[in-house]
């Protein structure tokens, strides 16, 4: 699946926020970390805000954000609710901290902070459990988020403890970072092995072809799920996720524990945090890269397909040129016409593309392709008045059936009535090869549009051409 960076950032910052609050809650339960409280709350709040902004960027209609509370049991709604609960707990902690005589929040607030911090991460992971994506549909995902929160929160705690010289928190933050790091290493190994053995969870369709994605190879699910431990993503996993993301911070936490000095805590903690952050991002990216649907016709979901097939660019001029190449004609600006291989492409005097940003199509104007009707062999015009239809042909192999006459978005495709009346569903195909080279006349779809032809010719060229058009119509093409 395409990497969804807003969601990657969202889950990461939520883990930072939850872990920081949970670490501070643990210190409150132990009656320690008085000087760390305000900085920890600030870091947790800031991480929550940054994560919230990140997920905002993911939404197409951010102004409808409050619709997100419309389905109480959906994962996203629960995330929203727990974010609000988290913010309330932050405020509660702050108030109770000030209210306390010792200046440290009471133990019960510490417990609430731990629960709120870790629950936020667990709910976030739970929202990604989708049976359509076997790699994500495992309890290891929320477990990873919770453990990652503990790890990142402890490392943040080390940095804060060293920075504010809160000596009673030096040892505990380092120990938690050490233990959480070791647990994270184990969790990641279990998760990677689990993914590696998920090949049987995908439907086995050995050979298939998707004409909407002709340049995308078949999904090899065994290669995808096997890529983490020993395949193409093994280096990223072992070096990035485990070595840099876990082993290095764990070693640094151990050294900080032994040093038990503020300066060491800050330096080791900051370096360890940077490495853990890198590992966290790499693992989240890997989870997106191996996300394949249970019915594996596409990498991830079709609308968020693999990066190998970015959507075609939409600059209008380029599309115009490509359309002409496809049909074997030159770019014809502003009222000129050209002829190649028996095909004539004529354009009106004003741009008529029906895309946003283009001038609106003048009424009655259209482009026309002239060729020979496959049924009666007479020269005919095939008219399009919306180039969206042409662009489809450029990028895909399509089959058009007789009888389609569609005016949606101004597309207007006339099919020879004789062909239609024959009853047989007539199909024309523009193959990929034909799109790239000037096609011979017989291979394109030429139909007669006699009535349109007459009308256009009458408007543009006067009645003389109309008579000529009518003579052609009378040469045996039924219904013209």
């Amino acid at each position, binding site marked *: 699946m395409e990497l969804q960076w807003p969601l990657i950032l969202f889950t990461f910052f939520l883990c930072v926020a939850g872990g920081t609050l949970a670490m501070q809650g643990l210190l409150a339960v132990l009656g320690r970390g008085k000087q760390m409280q305000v900085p920890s709350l600030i870091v947790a709040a800031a991480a929550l805000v940054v994560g919230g902004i990140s997920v905002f960027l993911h939404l197409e209609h*951010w102004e*409808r*954000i409050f619709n997100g509370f419309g389905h109480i049991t959906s994962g996203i*709604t629960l995330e929203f609710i727990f974010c609000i609960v988290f913010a309330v707990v932050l405020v509660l902690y702050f108030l109770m901290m000030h209210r306390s005589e010792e200046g440290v929040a009471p133990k019960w607030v510490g417990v609430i902070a731990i629960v709120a911090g870790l629950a936020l991460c667990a709910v976030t992971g739970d929202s990604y459990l989708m*049976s359509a994506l076997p790699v994500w549909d495992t309890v290891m995902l929320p477990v990873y988020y919770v453990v990652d929160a503990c790890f990142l929160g402890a490392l943040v705690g080390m940095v804060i403890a060293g920075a504010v010289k809160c000596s009673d928190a030096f040892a505990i933050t380092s120990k938690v970072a050490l233990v959480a790091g070791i647990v994270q290493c184990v969790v990641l190994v279990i998760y990677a092995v689990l993914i590696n053995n998920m090949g049987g969870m995908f439907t*086995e369709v050995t050979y298939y072809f998707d*004409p909407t994605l002709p340049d995308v190879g078949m999904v090899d699910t065994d290669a995808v799920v096997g890529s983490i431990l020993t395949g193409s993503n093994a280096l990223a996993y072992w070096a990035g996720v485990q070595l840099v993301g876990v082993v290095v911070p764990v070693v640094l936490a151990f050294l900080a524990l032994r040093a038990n000095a503020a300066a060491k805590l800050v330096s080791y903690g900051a370096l360890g945090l940077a490495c853990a952050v890198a590992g966290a991002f790499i693992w989240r990216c890997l989870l997106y890269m191996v996300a394949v649907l249970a019915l594996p016709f596409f990498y991830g979901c079709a*609308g968020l397909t693999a990066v190998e097939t970015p959507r075609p660019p939409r600059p209008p001029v380029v599309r115009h040129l490509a359309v002409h190449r496809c049909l074997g004609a030159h770019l014809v600006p502003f009222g000129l016409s050209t002829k190649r291989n028996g095909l004539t492409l004529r354009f009106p005097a004003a741009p008529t593309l029906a895309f946003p940003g283009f001038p609106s199509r003048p009424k009655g104007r259209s482009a026309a392709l002239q060729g020979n009707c496959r049924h009666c062999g007479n020269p005919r015009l095939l008219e399009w008045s919306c180039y969206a239809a042409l662009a489809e042909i450029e990028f895909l192999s399509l089959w058009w059936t007789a009888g389609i006459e569609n005016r*949606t*978005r101004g597309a207007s495709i006339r099919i020879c009535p004789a062909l239609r009346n024959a009853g047989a569903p007539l199909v024309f195909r523009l193959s990929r090869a034909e799109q790239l080279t000037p096609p011979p006349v017989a291979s394109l779809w030429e139909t007669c549009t006699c009535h349109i032809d007459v009308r256009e010719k009458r408007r543009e060229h006067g009645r003389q051409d109309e008579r000529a058009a009518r003579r052609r119509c009378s040469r045996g093409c039924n219904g013209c």
Partner: protein
Amino acid sequence: MANYAIVTDLNRCTGCLACTVACKAINGVDVGNFWIKTLRIGPHPTESGSGHYPDVEMYFLPVQCQHCSNPECVRVCPTEASHVAADGTIQIDKEKCIGCQFCAMACPYGVRYLNESEKVVEKCTLCEQRIQQGELPQCVAQCGARARFFGDLDQGVDNFEGPAHPDSPGCQYDEMTKTRVKLKDYVEAYTSSDIHHLTDTGNAPKLMYILREGRKWRA
């Protein structure tokens, strides 16, 4: 109320892509988005064959929203934009959609697409605007091989209807569009074991595919 679905006879489907094109035409689907797409499954070597041509088999598979009985997309939607309509189809209220695309991730069949101009997710509506008026979905009406039939599951798949003349296969197009035939009267005989569904990950897809003996169902 009704429980609408579509059945596709894969032994008749020729992969003409008429359904794909008809859907795009009638619904104005964005370039690059496909509410229904026809895949080619195979060719695969036949069992107990030589392992290579000519002992191969293939079929075409139109994949669209399966209007599931237990839809994952509805479960994950935070705004209830994706919902189960009264007629059993899954519809999207575009006024509510926030474009989070979680439904697109949750769909096992990859048939949901973001409409980048309207910034909401779209998918097959089973041509709600047509079936409410007693017409057939466009992909059924336009099927090049008369392989697709539409109807109410509560009345049995045998009674699903397609646009064809019961007596005259070669009738004129305009006449054909005004007539209906039932599945059991039009296609070759089939049994319940010939009726298949796409991979079920707990979502219980409702759309059916008939694939008779001779070809192995793989999806």
